[in-house]
């Protein structure tokens, strides 16, 4: 299996336009496999599975790096690593749930190499950053030889590991709209251990109470509980307009179980995931608003 690595070819583009041209040109004849930090790709390669004969090395493309403010949007280059997210002051201050998710991806070594764009492109339903991006209503900045377009995260996942991107499109960046004012953010990953595990359930939530004391913003997103990372629309609707109480929390929990469709697999089983998803939802509500614990 190791020998196979020596036969693999890598295209090294000069810049993003060159990369897009190479990717487009490869469509008819064995599509180039884009490669960012390699933390998912090399696990596959080392296990003997080769996703394609030729790779497109994105690591050196400066256009895909950096974090910058653009209007009220924070734009994260696709090659932003999880370490970058953990330490960036704006990310920590305005998007604490994203910084928290980055801190729980793999361990230090993986965080230094794994990228936000790679996490999205890999499209695993267990991707740690994905529920947060969904709850923050992030936008994917896609590029191709035809130009640039934006794909909202809510429309990104069409099915299991199936992204709403064309085969010659690259993720150039992720745009985060300004976080809703006064909304509390929450992230929780449940795995076999605190570091280095693939999640059994991964959860991100935003919640805000209006002046009248009722919930006026609720966004809940989960991973590892369905073929795709999803927004829990029923649970959100059970919360909107309600006053925080244990009864509201119980109603949201019941609604959440209608939103999710977990399976039995190597990491966990359906019943455990349903129980844990409900527990984490209640934890989220209690943490951001203690009145959810009261009768």
């Amino acid at each position: 299996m190791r020998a196979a690595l020596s036969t693999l070819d890598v295209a090294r583009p000069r810049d993003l336009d060159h990369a897009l041209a190479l990717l487009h040109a490869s469509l008819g004849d064995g599509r180039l496999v884009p490669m960012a930090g390699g933390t998912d790709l090399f696990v596959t390669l080392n296990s003997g599975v080769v996703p394609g004969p030729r790779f497109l090395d994105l690591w050196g493309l400066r256009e895909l790096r950096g974090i910058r403010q653009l209007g009220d949007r924070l734009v994260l280059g696709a090659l932003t690593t999880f370490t970058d997210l953990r330490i960036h002051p704006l990310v920590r201050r305005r998007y604490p749930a994203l910084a928290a998710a980055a801190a729980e991806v793999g361990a230090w070594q993986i965080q230094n190499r794994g990228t936000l764009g790679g996490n999205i492109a890999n499209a695993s339903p267990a991707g740690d950053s994905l529920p947060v991006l969904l709850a923050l209503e992030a936008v994917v900045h896609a590029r191709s030889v035809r130009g640039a377009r934006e794909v909202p995260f809510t429309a990104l996942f069409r099915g299991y590991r199936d992204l709403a991107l064309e085969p010659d499109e690259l993720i150039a960046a992720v745009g985060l709209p300004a976080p809703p004012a006064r909304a509390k953010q929450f992230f929780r990953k449940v795995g076999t251990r605190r570091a280095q595990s693939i999640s059994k359930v991964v959860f991100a939530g935003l919640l805000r109470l209006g002046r009248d004391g009722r919930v006026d913003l609720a966004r809940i997103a989960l991973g590892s509980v369905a073929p795709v990372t999803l927004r829990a629309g029923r649970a959100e609707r059970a919360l909107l307009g309600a006053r925080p109480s244990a009864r509201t929390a119980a109603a949201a929990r019941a609604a959440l179980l209608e939103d999710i469709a977990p399976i039995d697999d190597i990491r966990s089983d359906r019943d455990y995931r349903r129980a844990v998803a409900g527990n984490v939802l209640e934890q989220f509500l209690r943490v951001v608003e203690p009145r959810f614990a009261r009768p």
Partner: protein
Amino acid sequence: MSALLTLDLTVNGRRRRVRVPAMKRLLDVLREECGLTGTKEGCGEGECGACTVLMDGEPVNSCLVPAVQAAGARVVTVEGLARGPALSVLQRAFVERGGTQCGICTPGILVTAHALLGRARGRVPGDDEVREALAGNLCRCTGYQKIIDAVQAAAVAQRRPARARARNAPRGSAKNTARASARNAAHSIATNAPSAGAKLPARRTARATPKPARRRRRPAR
């Protein structure tokens, strides 16, 4: 069909130029092209951290890095931690505190801990901080506590001013080091022997160990 790549990188301060397949793993480039076999392969999937090296100062799993992405990088392996024949403060702390048993995880752990101490800049990292930093380095022997003790002891030793260290040195610490290293070496031999110590009483292994009293020159500061 796949062209070889001419790869320039700096390994442990030395410039290297190698011709390798572009997707060859940095781990294999280091072991095969550079002859640096201190870096180990454990799981080959980024879980165990045995292959940890520093790339531009940051710990990475070298089993997940293609050669093509190491172009121009400054790489530090476990061989780069010691200066000449002398162990680094961190390495000595592992010997003194029993932070090493079978040894397969040790190179990766030393490299990650080295980066942690560099980041701590003289502060002694707390238990949780060390545990989090080392979360990507698995050890199946020690139970981790002695590793954490060793990292913190090294942080304390590095913080102590050089003069105080020199003053303390003659008071038998070298002897303790030698004794501890003999104990650990004996332990490694006993546990690594095919019979795993079953037929080899501990006393005999201890005696069989190469004479440990050979003083290591203390690193120049």
